Structures are given as structure tokens and as C-alpha cells.
């Protein structure tokens, strides 16, 4: 099996975008990030078209958050993905692997050409991410409710080792129905992990129905605050708001971001429709989607 390695061209492109973002004003930052996310959405739809399967709705709701993190926020080096003091990014909603793989490849962690093997026989790019095969993946996710406890562990380790590293975990909102997340939130607050940010992709849909019709989460902000988190609620597609919300804790508490998003964001006929959790677009729909994302 091929071991995926960093692609120097895209590592350089990542560095270039990062330096542009460092000096740009807010409007320009939002513009640069929106363009990067638009290209990522185009890539994702082509991967799902090629594989004949995938989770397009969640990929599109979360890609703006992920793009912002990798392009502008995370202290990482795509050419040295196991750098000791790196920030940790954990995609707890592992079914949105196409969004993660695209983000990693766009930032040079491995060659973009590999993306065409998404879910193909023996591909490193499984339906759910495997850290032993894909550089930049921190832990294997897929079953829900696993990423946040692991993130609590990496945040505690950063405190013990005094590396200053931050940990970011993206969770699905439906995933917040898993009890293990609340175990992890309780301990994050107890251990005063102000270096941990949990981001809930609040698209209000889960596989079978709306979250509030399934096992309601509201008032999610009050619940998270009651568990001892510093809660920031934003529009998860507003890049300026995202950049602000992803800043470090100001209270000594771990941060919870409720990112209000639209499942399927960016393509009119996919947006906010429960059936697009893992529906695969027809050839005509692929053409239309790419047009909307051009």
C-alpha cells in the first residue's frame, strides 16, 4: 500500500494563503476563505460522484469551518504532520471524511490526485478516516461520540507538556445525542481545558429527520453553558464570525462554538433537506451543482 506523503506544491500554496490571510483585512480574509471553500465543495461533489457514495449534506455544512481552521487558524505544518507541538484537529463526525480529505489534500498533507481514489478498493481514503493511512488525521473516527474524549486527552497532554498546543474538535449536532460527549464536556470543564474548542455543526438535521423531531437538543447553548463551557454561537458560514469564534478562550473555560449551518450549504437543491444526508447526486445534478459552485 502506498503511504501518502506531503505534496510540496500544495504545502507551498498553503503557506502562501496563510501569509495572505495574516495580512488581509476582514473582507479580504472572508473572500479568500470563501473561494477556498467553494473549490473544496467542487472537489467533494466530484469525489462523491466518483465513489457513488458519501455524506454530501454534512460535508457541505462543515467545510467552511474546516477551511477556516486549516487555512487560517491551526498551528500545523503539512510537511511535518506529526510535529510535536502542533494543534490537534479532530473530526468527530467521521462520516464527513470527504470534506476532511479534501481539506488535507488542498493544504498539502498528501497529493490531490489521491482524492480520486475516495472509497475505491484498497484506497487509503476509507469512508471514515484512518490516521495510520492518512497524514493529518489525528484519530480514527466514524462511530459517533468518540472525538471529544480523545480531544480532552490531547488537551490535557498539552497542559502537562506545556506545549501551548490547542485542540479543536468538530462534532455533528445529532452526535450530541451520544452520552460520551457529555462525559467529555464535563471533564473538559473540570480540568479547565481552556486550550480546547468544541465546534458543534448545528445544521439541525440528522440521518433520519430533524434533530428537534428526533431527540431535541435545544436549548443547546444553555446546556453547554451549564456544563461549564464558554459558549459562542455564530453563523457557521460567516468566515469573519468563524475567525473571531475560533480565538482562544477568554474565561479560562473550554470553548464551545455552536456553528449554525445549513446541511448541503452551497447547492440549492441539497440545502436543508434530510434526504441529502447521504444521497448521491445524479449526473445532471452534478453538473448543476458544479455550475452553482462556479
Amino acid at each position, binding site marked *: 500500500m502506498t503511504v501518502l506523503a506531503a505534496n510540496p506544491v500544495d504545502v507551498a500554496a498553503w503557506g502562501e494563503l496563510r501569509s495572505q490571510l495574516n495580512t488581509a483585512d476582514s473582507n479580504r480574509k472572508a473572500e479568500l476563505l470563501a473561494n477556498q471553500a467553494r473549490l473544496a465543495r467542487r472537489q467533494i461533489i466530484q469525489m462523491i460522484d466518483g465513489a457513488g457514495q458519501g455524506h454530501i449534506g454534512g460535508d457541505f455544512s462543515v467545510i467552511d469551518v474546516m477551511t477556516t481552521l486549516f487555512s487560517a487558524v491551526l498551528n500545523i505544518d503539512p510537511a511535518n504532520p506529526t510535529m510535536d507541538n502542533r494543534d490537534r484537529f479532530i473530526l468527530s463526525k467521521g462520516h464527513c471524511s470527504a470534506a476532511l480529505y479534501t481539506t488535507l489534500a488542498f493544504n498539502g498533507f498528501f497529493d490531490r490526485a489521491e482524492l480520486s481514489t475516495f472509497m475505491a478498493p484498497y484506497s487509503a481514503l476509507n469512508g471514515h478516516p484512518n*490516521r495510520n493511512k492518512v497524514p493529518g488525521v489525528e484519530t*480514527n473516527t466514524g462511530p459517533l461520540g468518540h472525538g471529544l*474524549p480523545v480531544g480532552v486527552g*490531547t488537551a490535557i497532554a498539552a497542559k502537562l507538556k506545556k506545549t501551548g498546543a490547542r485542540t479543536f474538535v468538530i462534532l455533528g449536532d445529532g452526535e450530541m445525542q451520544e452520552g460520551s460527549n457529555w*462525559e*467529555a464536556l464535563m*471533564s473538559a470543564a473540570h480540568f479547565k481545558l481552556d486550550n480546547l474548542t468544541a465546534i458543534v455543526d448545528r445544521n439541525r438535521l440528522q440521518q433520519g429527520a430533524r434533530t428537534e423531531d428526533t431527540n431535541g437538543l435545544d436549548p443547546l447553548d444553555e446546556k453547554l453553558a451549564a456544563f461549564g463551557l464558554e459558549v459562542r454561537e455564530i453563523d457557521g458560514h460567516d468566515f469573519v464570525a468563524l475567525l473571531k469564534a475560533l480565538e482562544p478562550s477568554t474565561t479560562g473555560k473550554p470553548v464551545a462554538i455552536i456553528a449554525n449551518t445549513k446541511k448541503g450549504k452551497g447547492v440549492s437543491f441539497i440545502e436543508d433537506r434530510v434526504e441529502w444526508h447521504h444521497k448521491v447526486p445524479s449526473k445532471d445534478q452534478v453538473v448543476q451543482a458544479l455550475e452553482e459552485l462556479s
Partner: protein
Amino acid sequence: MSAPTANSYLIDGVELPVFDNRVAFANTLIELARTDERIVAVCNDSVGSSNLGGFREEFPDRLINVGIAEQNMVGVGAGLANAGMIPFVCAAGPFLSGRATEQVKADVAYSYFPVILCAMSPGMAYGELGPTHHSVEDLSWMRALPNLDIVMPADELQTQQAVRWAVDAGRPVYLRVGRHKVPNLVADGTPFTRGAFVEMTSGNDVTIIAAGSMVSRAIAAVSILKQQGVSARVLNATFIAPLDVEAIKKAAKETRGIVTVEEANVAGGLGAAVASVLGTLEGASRVPLRIVGTDDWSPTLSTDALYTHFGLTAENIAQQVNEVLARD
């Protein structure tokens, strides 16, 4: 007869003192942690039952007690390992292996993090507390996970060796740390080798393969069998995964039957593992096998009485040996 008491175990007419392996576990862990800052302990409100009081006193920051939350506990262990720490995740066996099975699968074994999962007081150590507090299913569950080493030290020396080995193993480990007291039987200087059984007695009529708390009972059975003119080899299954396939094949070739003994359910533990090897052998090598372990919910009894109830005694092991040889 080899009637055990609280403070000794009788083998071949000699009363041997017995020890709680959690003590050797904690002492070794503390000793290693003094010179290796990567070592941390994670537990679920089990500072006392995991015998981590001394560790907490010396390394308060490196004892991470997540409270009664086993799923989070195992995930936290994986995260610590991600960041280069060496976490010993300690909890009573039933809750570590049962409540957090999916975390052990996805976060530790499949993610391949060097987490040492320490199943404290495994088997039926909690006696009258009953099946909810017994960990006899763990070997079946854990054996199904690729990349997870399963280690069952038989006494103090092997417990110390296992802890030292695990620190350097760099891979996922499930370590059973016994609470029910057992005598020290493994000779000083005996090597501790990943995936290798330890031969405790040589013998050429029959082989008894025993693990953890059952090794002393197998050796007590040897003295009974000696009086009956039967020469028994005892293999101490210190590792159940990876399995010492060569030692099993050798036993099948050189002796006329095999009896396995484990403080675990027979559905998928040591005996099942041995059977999976024996079943593939040809003709005369496919010697008869008896698997001694538990096969039902335990009634309200002390640990020792449960051993008797399920036939985990020297007398029953000797009896099983005789049945195996009669079938030969």
C-alpha cells in the same frame, strides 16, 4: 488436596504465601514514572481499587481521574497517547472492557495508539458482588480486536515484567491485573517475551495451558497427577494475543492431550484460541482438548467458592487431564 486459604496456597504439601498483583503493579508503575515523565495514569474514580493512591501522592498532575465515565476515560487515554504520553488506563475489568468496548476498538486498537488498558480485579475477583462486577467476557471481546495484545501475568514477577514491557511496547495492550491473591511461581530470571508462553513444568504425557490466576492451580494439579503417574507440562499463557502457536503445536506433537484453564468465559478465551490452532492440525497431532472456564452467570459465592463451582481447581484440572488421556 490443595485447599486455598486467604493467605496461602498449598502446592505439593507446601503452603506458599500469596500476593495481590495490584501491589506489584502500582510499585512498578511508580518506580518507572520517576524517570519517565511520559507515564500517566487515567482512571474512573478507581484510585483505591486500582491501587493508585501512591501514584497520585507522588505525581498528582499525572493521575487523571475522569470520574465514573469509562467511555471518556478510554478516549482520554487515546488522546494522551496521541500527544506522546504513555497512559495506563485503569479501571475494574468489567467496566473497562464492557462499558468502553467501542472506545477500545476504535480509539485504541484501530487507531493503534500505545495505550495500556489495565483491567483491574479481573475474572471473578469481586465474588459475591456478582456477574455485573465480574470480568469473564473480556477475553472473548478483546481477542476479536486486531492489534491488541492481551497480557495476563501470573504472579508478582510477571506483573512487574508486564508493566516494564508495556511502557516500551509502543502498541495497544490489554493487561489483566489480578486482585485475588496468588503465589509467586515464575522463577527469577525467566524472560518475558511478547507472544510467548512460559513453560512452568516439563512433562510428556499431557499439557496444561493456564493463564493468570489459574497458573498456580495448574501447577497444583501437576503434583496430584505426579502421584497418579502422569507427567504434565504446564504452559503459562502470559500472552493470549499474540498467541504462541508454535508452543501449542509442539504440545500437540509431544504430549497426548491438552487442557486449558482460564478465569474467563469459554466462549472465546484461551481455550477457544488453543482450539482454533488444534483444529487446523492433521491427524494424530489433533490431540483431544478440554477447556476449563466459566460458562454461565455466577451464583452468589466468594471468589474461591466460584472457582470450585466452575471447576477451576487443581482437582478438576487433574480430572480433566485423566479424561483427555482416556480419550487418547
